[in-house]
């Protein structure tokens, strides 16, 4: 609260029109001072983490309550307790681990291929004007095709094995990386390029010491987008003719109305997404610590 001027004395001395106003400046009525209370003492402190976890826990409790009273039947959605048990069984039997390995492998290969292709194309069109003319237009055109829509075509081309699944992930990963790396290269401060030139750097030296490090923040953003899309592509890809992986587990569970297994698989997807985000964040912390805007530690 801000301190406003104290109201004039209510007894109202100042009504007489001429005389007293000058004398008033020498002897003022005492101000009504208000203490400013430090924020820390004003409220009872519930730790933030506790406040943040209350909501989800309450939701979980409500879910469990609805399930155990029979309002929510298990073929609509299994109870949290049951999901935990099934999750544990899946871990214990090793089927979850093997499914995760298969899925992770698909994502890893797709991500690797997509990164190589996306970054490679971005380098060609970012560094050379000829490359831009040849590469950028077709890539921008292909980018507008929704990659999930290509699944039927990929099945015809690559059959129903691992190839179409990896191809979908690769395609999904390539474009965000291309766009961001390209924008990063073209966004490097021209003053720094000029400084590099004045220091006698060769063309390759400029690319290595100025352009690529300058494009790195954008490249990391692209990687983050790509990872998000990689999981999405994985979910789509594994719903078609999979005989292993998390998606396969889900399709199987759907056929037997096992909502518990489906929820476990969804949790696994979420967990893998979190893990990927953690990896990128660690990379950023290591590679971008020079950034003036970087605030984390």
């Amino acid at each position, binding site marked *: 609260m801000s301190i406003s001027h104290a109201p004039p004395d209510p007894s109202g001395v100042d009504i007489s029109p001429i005389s007293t106003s000058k004398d008033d400046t020498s002897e003022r009525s005492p101000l009504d001072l208000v203490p400013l209370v430090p924020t820390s003492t004003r409220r009872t402190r519930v730790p933030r983490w506790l406040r943040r976890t209350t909501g989800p826990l309450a939701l979980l409790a409500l879910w469990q309550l609805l399930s155990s009273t029979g309002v929510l039947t298990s073929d609509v959605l299994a109870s949290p307790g049951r999901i935990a048990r099934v999750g544990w069984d899946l871990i214990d039997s090793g089927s979850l681990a093997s499914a995760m390995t298969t899925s992770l492998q698909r994502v890893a290969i797709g991500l690797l291929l997509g990164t190589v292709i996306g970054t490679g194309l971005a380098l060609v069109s970012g560094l050379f004007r000829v490359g831009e003319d040849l590469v950028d237009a077709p890539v921008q055109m292909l980018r507008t095709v929704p990659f999930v829509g290509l699944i039927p075509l990929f099945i015809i081309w690559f059959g129903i094995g691992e190839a179409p699944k990896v191809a979908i992930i690769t395609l999904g990963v390539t474009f965000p990386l291309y766009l961001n790396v390209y924008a990063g290269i073209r966004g490097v401060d021209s003053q720094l390029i000029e*400084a*590099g*030139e004045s220091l006698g750097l060769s063309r390759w030296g400029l690319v290595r*010491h100025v352009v690529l*490090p300058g494009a790195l923040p954008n490249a990391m953003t692209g990687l983050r987008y790509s990872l998000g899309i990689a999981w999405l592509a994985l979910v789509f890809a594994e719903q078609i003719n999979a005989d292993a992986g998390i998606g396969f587990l889900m399709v199987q569970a759907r056929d037997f109305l096992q909502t518990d297994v489906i929820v476990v698989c969804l949790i696994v997807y979420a967990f893998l997404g979190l893990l990927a985000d953690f990896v990128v964040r660690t990379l950023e912390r290591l590679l971008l610590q020079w*950034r003036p805007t970087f605030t984390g530690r």
Partner: protein
Amino acid sequence: MATDVHGPVSPQAATSSPVTTQAVRVEGLTRSFDGRPVIDKLQLDVRQGEFVALLGRSGCGKSTLLRILAGLDRDIEGTVLVPRRKAVAFQAPRLMPWKKVWRNVLLGLPGKPERAVAEKALAEVGLGDHADAWPKTLSGGEAQRASLARALVREPDLLLLDEPFGALDALTRIKAQRLVGELWQRRGCAVLLVTHYVEEAVLLADRVLVMDDGVIAHEQRIDLDRPRDITDPRFAELRAGLLERLGVDTAAEAA
């Protein structure tokens, strides 16, 4: 002394260059932007080891001239001869933010220079204990000194300074000016300082050039003893004369 030739060289210039004691030789230099000449048949000579300050109103082409001498602008006509070893310090420090200070200093040096080389240059500008810092942690003055170290480590025969103190606060600028004066006396390289502070020019330079309409319009030799005293009446007189040349009425300024 090795000279690097940019642009066409007339035969006379080619024959006279081996015996020259000049660090810069410019004859009939023209640089146009969209047909409008910013530099128009300009003549300029800088002796080896000479400190020359270049004054002028903004937009008079003084920074363009410096960029040409640095080899960063080659859309030129005329003769420009500059030493092979030259270095530039810009108004902004232009350190690569992704390289630690000592790597910035060594950037672009031929071969594989040792870290000690950078540390020596940094110590010379008083930044010896900042070799391992990221550029973002340096203050404006420190970054500018690091940029100066990066220029000096090249052991230039010609040091080009483009308003290097322009972005510094008044106190830091005084210190930086003193530092440049000391470094120049120690190194003995030719210096071309582009500035718009008349006082700075008179304080540091052997010769002050005033650029106007794309040519060197006025030349003023500064014969004051070093270190110079800005309260010296002769200093004030030179300063007033140059200000007048730049179109600033000193009486009005003093009022």
